[in-house]
């Protein structure tokens, strides 16, 4: 196997540009290496981007925070910027595997791996995050909600690398919540994950973003439920109707971890839990 450890981003993009060296990118390897083992075969080469300083930074700008793709879950958990502007991302990262996985696994790997059960995509989607995709000829920004095309399919082109995640700063008048229901208390893959970010004033919803994991082929937003809730007063009727709308909008499946019915039920209840808590808090 050919192993490339790149000195800088340009070098990595150069390797990707050449079909002869267009090998899988390896960041923390916590998804990739498991997949190699399960598939019983290794690729002919690998491009290790795990140590590229250019994409291991967390930067605060005027209206956004930028997270390098190779930032690990542990780095996110410890970052003051993330804690301040997107604390629920810290909550999500804390639930990823255990400390060993958090130390190696990266946010970029979590996004590009495109598992419907990945824990950071629902948070990033609820925060209207964009991903920056780069190749030798330039870079483009894609909203994360448009990045996922179908089950494990993304908009990433073969010569592209995910460089940064750009998260808009949201005002202090918005409150977010992240809930993950796994198969056990730790080291668990999500059966349902929900992230909601909302602006609620006087018991009424001014703005809301709802994103879920493990209830559809990709992480998804729930636009119909959002549209229903916008402008509504949060009474028990509204909460019930929101639950019904959400249930109709998501498409969970039966699999080894859980059942479609259970996932739907839990997704509804978690939304209700958030709304009840949020209407008290504002």
């Amino acid at each position, binding site marked *: 196997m050919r192993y490339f450890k790149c000195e800088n981003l340009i070098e990595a993009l150069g390797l990707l540009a050449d079909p002869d060296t267009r090998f899988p990118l390896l960041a923390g390897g916590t998804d990739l290496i*498991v997949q190699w083992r399960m598939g*019983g075969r290794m690729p002919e080469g690998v491009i290790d981007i795990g140590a590229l300083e250019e994409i291991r930074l967390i930067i605060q700008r005027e209206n956004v925070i930028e997270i390098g793709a190779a930032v690990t879950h542990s780095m996110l958990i410890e970052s003051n910027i993330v804690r301040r502007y997107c604390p629920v991302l810290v909550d999500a990262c804390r639930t990823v595997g255990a400390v060993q996985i958090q130390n190696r696994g990266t946010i970029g790997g979590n996004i590009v791996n495109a598992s419907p059960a990945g824990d950071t995509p629902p948070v990033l989607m609820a925060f209207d995050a964009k991903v920056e995709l780069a190749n030798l000829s330039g870079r483009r920004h894609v909203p994360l909600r448009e990045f996922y095309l179908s089950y494990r399919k993304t908009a990433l082109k073969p010569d592209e690398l995910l460089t940064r995640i750009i998260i808009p700063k949201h005002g202090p008048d918005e409150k977010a919540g992240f809930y993950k*229901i796994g*198969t*056990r*208390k*730790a*080291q*668990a*893959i999500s059966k349902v994950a929900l992230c909601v970010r909302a602006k609620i004033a006087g018991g009424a919803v001014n703005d809301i973003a709802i994103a879920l994991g493990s209830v559809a082929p990709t992480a998804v937003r729930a636009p119909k439920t959002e549209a229903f809730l916008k402008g509504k007063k949060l009474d028990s009727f509204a909460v*019930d109707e929101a639950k019904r709308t959400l249930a109709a909008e998501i498409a969970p499946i039966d699999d*080894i*971890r*859980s*059942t479609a*019915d*259970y996932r739907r*039920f*839990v997704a509804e*209840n*978690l939304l*209700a*839990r958030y709304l009840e808590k949020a209407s008290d808090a504002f």
Partner: protein
Amino acid sequence: MGVVGQNAVRLDGREKVTGRALYVDDIVMPGMWHGVAVRTTIPSGKVLSVVFDPRFNWKKVVVADRHDIPGRNVVTMIEEDMPLLVHDEIRHIGEAIVLIAAPTKKMAEDARRHVEIRYEEWQPVLTIEDSKAKKRVIHGSDNVISRYKIDKGDVSAGFKDSDAIVEGVYRTGAQEQAYIEPQGIIASPGKGGGVDLVGSMQCPFYILKALERLLGMSETKLSVKQATVGGAFGGKEDYPSVLAGYASVLALKAKRPVKMIYDRNEDMNVTTKRHPSVVRHRTGVKKNGMLVAMDIGIELDAGAYTTLTPVVLSRGFLHSAGPYRCPNVRIAGAAFATNAPPNGAFRGFGAPQTLFAVEAHMDKIAEEIGMSPLELRRINCLKVGDEMATGQILKESVGALECLEKAAAASGFERKWRASLPLCKGESEGIEVRSTLPDPPLQREGTVRGIGISLFMHGGGFTGSGEAKMKGKAGIRLERDGKLTVLTGCTEMGQGAHTVLPQIVAECLGVPLSCVRVETPDTSKVPDSGPTVASRVTMVIGKVLCVCAEEMKRRLSEAAGRDHGDFRSLAGSFLKKRGPLTIIEAYEPTPGIHWDDTTYHGDAYAAYSWGCDVAEVEVDKDTFEIKVERMYMAHDVGRAVNPQMVEGQIEGGTLQALGWALMEDNRYDGGKLLNNRFQTYIIPTTMDTPFLELITVEHPFSHGPLGAKGVGELPHDGAAPAVVNAIANATGIRISEIPATPERLFEECKKKHFRSS
């Protein structure tokens, strides 16, 4: 000396924590190759042909098939129905057809991918129901692997005499042992054309017996040695005989050592699991709570071959009526063959399944007659002098009631139980808690809490006449330097046997523990103590060692011509005059024990350990997540030889049982295991572990070593029913099938129109 009763530090601890202990995969031999098995991918059918892809260079490897087996193509256990390599008929996915050895594991794996098997496929039999209905006959004439019947009193008359009759059906799933170290063995050609084995195993002498038959060799040409073992839980009782067979056949053909180590997936796919069960109860009871008649039906899914199933079923039978007095009992049932990999030994060995059923059922009875579950158990609990279902009269060492009272008192059971009210009252019978209960206090927002209890026992040692037939041997050798060596085929696999047995010897001889060591279990060096199973090592082999110690003292005194003086001085003068001394004794069954295998009547076990578990759970109303917050466990182990290790067994066994109760679930599709890795086979983590409160109860057993009884399996018996009973107390939903996952609780609640909205 007071060595027994002390928390002696594990004698194997230092080696293990410093990484010096050699597990089988750490062992490398000169010229050693690596073996793999080519396996069936269909559950039922016939092999038409085996095709070796000519693109692979077969000269680089050694291939063995059934024609290379020098003796008979069988894996000898209880029966000889299981071939080592598929002969003709395929009975489950993962059966080996061809074996390959290669210089590297990678090459062996590569070779395996270049073998194609062509089949004729048959309709598989995959459930107990289909097997029982003889959808196809895959074993014997009726798919029955084993069947028993126990009859006591007159059950029909008992039902006529009852005020209420309560029925229930209980199901449990397959469970994976999940030992840390997967299975592995190295076979190497030995002297005189024989074979030497070293590996991860519980029972070296089982392997010896299996290889004699398979290789057509006398045991003098064979030696089987245990490497350091990283956990077993029953999973390394019978299966290593299979792996030893593969490795030996390859080693003989390749004329070099062959190592076979499973990775986790292969281990989970092909090795044995806990038998899935269906247990039906019909119980007649008086208004005052007295049990009058118990009619119990037991069915186990045996998988494709007999393996240890008859003994698992037997133990299941003998524990199925629980620790209760009942004049009329009928127990009937069978283990059925299916096209799944054979199920086998797992901590508890059939008892956890049937105790789950009876203990969940006791709560249903209590509810039916409006009595507290604690009171119902108290009324019927076995005491000294009582008669069990097999007619066994309990003569001594019955700590059941003390366990019950202590666990109930420590947990505040009665008060807490009354304080909970179901969250979901259904229309159907048996769901509502009676009006004898006070109004519930306000629940914490979003969750409901409940408490549940279970009472249980575990028979120590082999069932019935097993120990009398086995005559397990063990010995003590006085070494030239005055130190003592314990000689036993019983193995250390993490449970602490090789610390506890020396503690017993040190105590009996009056020497410090540091003077005693244990010989490596190697069939060429130690006597056959019988297998390391059935909660028997401390109780049975510990007892044999006490007898050895007495005999040694007698011989030393005799030689010295005096019976006073301490062991050291007697031993010193003996060694000077005559040199080392080895004493080997065999187990003498407890006097007055009678068992009839044909009628299943008599003293099923010489002694029972008893236990009571109380579980407190919290159920989230939004997600149905079940959190076990606290467990109280009062266990009567006779005498705790090493209290800390007893606690270790109880804590570990309870957690393993909680896994089985709440999340562990081997799921199959068309005979194929779906969750063959730890990403999808979910076991509890530290974060899932409740606060565990232990209460040790000691009702000594006169024939046990210094009063000790078994503790290895007991802790797996009580947690599951205590938890489902607690869930019922919290939610009003009786879960009769485990694992009690949130999904299952949700489904049950839906059935009861949970939250009518």
